[in-house]
């Protein structure tokens, strides 16, 4: 039951993009085409899961430990370490993608290295730490948050592909109408609140 709550909560109720408003930059940046949005979603799910796993390990066992009966508290290193780990992971993905799918690598462009500074990934790691999740819980939470991000991104990119065929007034063309759409999408997700 606890895990179900964790899953539904991360995917729908506390959706990273549409309720917590984290990770808006790639949400707007790579949502023009469904195919690139899918690639980005995969990358984010991967980074978030692995990052949640490693950061919760680091948080639980390396940042606070006992030596000779005394407690050493390295909590102040939390953000620094998390970013270091996320940056390393993103680097790995970049190296892999460049080799395995150069087209996707080109399409993602600047947004791929920007996952490093993507607040959603750091946010997941920080929420894990604040809620004192176990390593398993943290990994599930990270994976589901990634799924939630992917859901929002895929929904939005499908909408944007259809938006291209519509002819809004000139002042609304492009990003403005995309932002309006994102707002309406976020309002729709409010409907999930209270579920858990």
């Amino acid at each position, binding site marked *: 039951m606890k895990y179900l709550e964790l899953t539904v909560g991360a995917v729908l109720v506390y959706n990273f993009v549409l309720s917590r408003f984290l990770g808006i930059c790639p949400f707007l940046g790579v949502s023009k085409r469904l195919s690139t949005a899918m690639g980005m979603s995969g990358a984010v799910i991967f980074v978030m899961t692995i990052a949640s796993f490693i950061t919760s390990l*680091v948080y639980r066992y*390396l940042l606070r430990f006992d*030596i000779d009966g005394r407690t*050493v*508290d*390295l909590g*102040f*290193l939390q953000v*620094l*370490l998390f970013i*270091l*780990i996320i940056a*390393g992971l993103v*680097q*790995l993905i970049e*190296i*892999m993608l*460049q*080799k*395995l799918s150069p087209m996707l690598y080109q399409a993602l462009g600047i947004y791929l290295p920007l996952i490093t500074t993507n607040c959603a990934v750091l946010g997941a790691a920080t929420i894990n730490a604040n809620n004192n999740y176990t390593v398993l819980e943290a990994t599930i939470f990270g994976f589901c948050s990634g799924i939630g991000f992917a859901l929002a991104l895929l929904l939005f990119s499908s909408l944007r592909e259809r938006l291209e065929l519509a002819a809004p007034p000139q002042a609304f063309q492009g990003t403005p109408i995309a932002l309006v759409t994102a707002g309406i999408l976020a309002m729709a997700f409010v409907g999930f609140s209270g579920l858990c």
Partner: protein
Amino acid sequence: METILFAILLMAVIGLVLGLVIGWFAKIFQIESDSRVELVTELLPGANCGGCGKAGCSDFAKSVVSGENPPSKCPVSSKEQVTAIALALGIDAGESFQQRAVVCCGGDREQTKRLLNYNGVVDCVSASLVAGGPKGCSYGCLGMGTCARKCPFGAIEIINNLAVVHRELCVGCGTCVAACPRGVIKLVPADAEVHVYCNSPAKGPAKRQVCNVPCLGCRKCARAFPNKFKVDGFKAQVNYEAKPLPTADDVQAVGCPTGCLLTADEHLKIEQNEPEWSPEK
């Protein structure tokens, strides 16, 4: 003191582990990349117009580095840019051949009869599919701006329902040539000043019925300068292969009876001087 030590140690160890993993990954997923391709891509204009026949500037850069194309194959780059690329790669620049687009039609709203009250989609391709377009002449410019919208350099303007090329902006990439459903736009050597502004292969009297400024095929120009003009069927053409090309003085000397033999500047000026035209329109 202890805390500081542990902090430094922790950061160092994690940094080291990550560094090793990344290094190991980089080795596994190593890709062969040629830094020269990037260099050439940067030196190219980056308009991705496709005038070279490749998919875009980076694709062209690859073909230049591999020796498939000389740098001069890029129609957009100036001579200086081409030389820079050739110098960077240490290869021969190749013979530069600059081209310009020219709309071979002078039949604007005033000059060519309209036989159909057309109010469909304002697009040349669409219009040409309805009874061959509203114009009396089925070879001339439709003037609905498909070429102007496609031009990546904004070099074509529609004045008085006729497309005219601003030569100083045109780079000769050929996008407009492919866009035009009528095939009115042609690529000519960049130094050619004089053109025959008529595209219709129809007989003289038939053209006369629908247009005030057709080429009647009277051979006046070809008689005056047999090397510079040739007559093909019922239409005269500038002989772009022969040098020297005709000049503005030659146009004066010929005295074309319908005024379809013009310099490119005159063609633009005539349209801009039309009484109803204003740049705001």
